[in-house]
């Protein structure tokens, strides 16, 4: 496989052999190792010295199901630390099938010049001036590029938010239908792409490069067993296809962990109007699509297509985190408005979570009333228009909080929490506070241990055991994000036999013995490298804290605050 190095300053591209040090990793490990190695921690995230790295997972392009995850890494302009945000769709699989292990974007194009990178095959790529795309939203960008370069191309691009280098800017990528509705949303990496002058990456989807496997037969057998387990699991095999990730709305709300009205409450009165069950029914009645396939190699089909009452496309995919951020978090129970806001964020190129939380802070500060979805839509449109208020919203909750001198800002390291209140599910308090990524639920999702088995295997509203489960899950997820398995296909590795299949595939692909010890060491190494980058960037343990609102304001209905102490937080990465 090759690295494709793209210099935006000189507008040159170069294919390179992959150094041995990076041969056995992909995804998050690769982006974090390379950022750590090649980007000084103190650089301006929006300057020429930062690098933006796109890396398919280690298993992407193999026969293993649900491995079309692309890690995007850089120094984040939002958090000021190292960042990895990953996205599904078609791009990771397409790059792997062209034999490309990573695209490294460095330097900076002359001011106001935007280019598209056209990756044709394993030997041919070029930068093309794209003046005609400046200011275009992602759906229009994709449409034009598909017209000019062919409908079958995978396209990864930014919208106006990325061009304006706003801190909530996402990188959008096309799904199997060619829509730019998949997002590497977190950390403002769209702003980094904008700062480079890179509007889009076009990747040919017709690559046929066989995966590099030392023992192809062993890999094939283990991958088949893995797929069988994912199909057999009720959640990944049935529930996600029928309801999508929105199925989480009701149980998380029941647990009092659905942050509502800027996390003033843990339960939302309008929950039934926006639940997974309701969304699936509405989509079906209107002629939209449930059980929609969004990503290459997917057998779960958790995506959907939300349509208007007249059956016209609105957005894909309407997912749990957005239903929260544009629903309960801003007090909005209007499903059509949530869908519209989801579309606008995709189209403008914005992280739905950071943007919803920014709106919530503005509403909480009295700028508008909670539930005013028309104001929410108008404000997101203002982001694209580049008004002063639009830029505040587009720069995220911290920016809005500063503007209104409002202290109730639910962020860690500048990034908003996700759809699990850390007071009701205290394992998420540990993950939000300590992950090098800023408040990021995917870094260590411990909701199941806090809620299942009739109220959790740990006390969800206490601190005991929370550091341990968050630590273990964060280490595990650093490895999962390295191989590129979709979070929702983790049912395949939930048992001893299941994770054994992953180890078998690691061995078969690398030619090295692989077991639990190597898996854990990989996860630990990734986190250590990320923590060291952040330390060099100026982070201290004081940054591994939740904002005061979570320690001081009891959350209804349980009226509980975060109980995990600072000392416990600081012990999370004692390894």
């Amino acid at each position, binding site marked *: 496989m090759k690295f494709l190095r793209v210099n935006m300053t000189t507008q040159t591209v170069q294919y390179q052999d992959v150094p041995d040090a990076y041969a056995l990793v992909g995804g998050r490990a690769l982006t974090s190792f390379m950022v750590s190695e090649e980007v000084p921690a103190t650089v301006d995230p929006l300057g020429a010295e930062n690098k933006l790295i796109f890396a398919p997972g280690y298993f992407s392009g193999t026969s293993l199901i649900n491995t079309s995850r692309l890690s995007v890494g850089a120094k984040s302009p939002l958090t000021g630390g190292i960042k990895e945000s990953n996205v599904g769709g078609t791009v990771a699989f397409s790059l792997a099938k062209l034999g490309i292990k990573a695209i490294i974007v460095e330097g900076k194009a002359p001011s106001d010049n935007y280019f598209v990178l056209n990756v044709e095959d394993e030997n041919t790529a070029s930068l093309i001036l794209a003046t005609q795309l400046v200011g275009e939203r992602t759906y229009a960008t994709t449409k034009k590029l598909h017209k000019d370069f062919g409908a079958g191309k995978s396209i990864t691009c930014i919208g106006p938010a990325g061009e304006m280098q706003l801190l909530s800017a996402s990188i959008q990528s096309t799904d199997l239908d060619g829509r730019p509705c998949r997002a590497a949303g977190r950390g403002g990496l769209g702003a980094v792409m904008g700062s480079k002058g890179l509007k889009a990456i076009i990747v040919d989807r017709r690559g046929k490069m066989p995966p590099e496997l030392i023992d192809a037969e062993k890999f094939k057998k283990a991958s088949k067993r893995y797929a069988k387990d994912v199909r057999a699991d009720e959640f990944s095999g049935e529930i996600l296809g029928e309801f999508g990730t929105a199925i989480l709305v*009701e149980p998380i709300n029941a647990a009092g962990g659905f942050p509502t009205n800027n996390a003033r409450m843990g339960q939302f009165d309008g929950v039934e109007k926006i639940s997974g*069950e309701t969304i699936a029914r509405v989509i079906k009645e209107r002629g939209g699509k449930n059980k929609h396939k969004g990503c290459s190699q997917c057998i779960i089909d958790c995506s959907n297509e939300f349509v208007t009452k007249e059956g016209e496309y609105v957005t894909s995919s309407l997912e749990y985190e957005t239903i929260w951020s544009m629903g309960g978090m801003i007090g909005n129970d209007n499903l059509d408005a949530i869908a519209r806001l989801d579309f606008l964020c995709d189209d403008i190129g914005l992280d739905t979570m950071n943007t919803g939380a920014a709106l919530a802070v503005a509403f909480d500060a009295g700028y508008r009333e909670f539930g005013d979805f028309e104001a929410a839509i108008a404000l997101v449109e203002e982001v694209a228009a580049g008004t002063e208020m639009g830029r505040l919203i587009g720069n995220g909750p911290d920016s809005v909080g500063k503007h209104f001198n409002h202290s109730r800002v639910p962020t860690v390291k500048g990034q908003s929490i996700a759809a699990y209140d850390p007071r009701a599910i205290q394992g998420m308090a540990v993950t939000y506070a300590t992950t090098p990524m800023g408040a990021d639920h995917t870094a260590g999702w411990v909701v199941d241990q806090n*809620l*299942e088995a009739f109220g959790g295997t740990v006390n969800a509203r206490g601190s005991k055991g929370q550091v341990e489960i968050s630590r273990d899950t964060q280490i595990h997820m650093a490895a999962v994000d390295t191989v590129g398995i979709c979070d929702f296909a983790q049912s395949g590795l939930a048992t001893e036999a299941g994770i054994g299949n992953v180890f078998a595939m690691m061995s078969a692909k690398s030619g090295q013995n692989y077991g639990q010890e190597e898996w854990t060491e990989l996860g630990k190494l990734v986190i250590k490298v990320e923590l060291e980058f952040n330390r060099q960037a100026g982070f201290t343990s004081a940054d591994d804290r939740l904002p005061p609102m979570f320690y001081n304001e009891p959350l209804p209905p349980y009226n509980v605050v975060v109980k995990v102490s600072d000392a416990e937080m600081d012990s999370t990465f004692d390894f």
Partner: protein
Amino acid sequence: MQVHVKLYGTLPKLYLGDYPKTGLDVAAWQGLTVAELVQLVPLPHNQVAIVSINGFLAKAADAVPQNAQVKFFQPINGG
């Protein structure tokens, strides 16, 4: 004594019988626990992982009060 049970996710489909859209009225008794209630509702084994009673999460050993509004949820995963 009676309690009202609502099923979520694919539980209505898995319910062994005709599941009314408004939920089930289940005949119960004083001291009935959550674990016992789960056994009373005809569902395949191990399909219920989270239970709430009157808006609060319940433990397996918790007693189910009279006229309780109960919600059954399946195991979840996420990220």
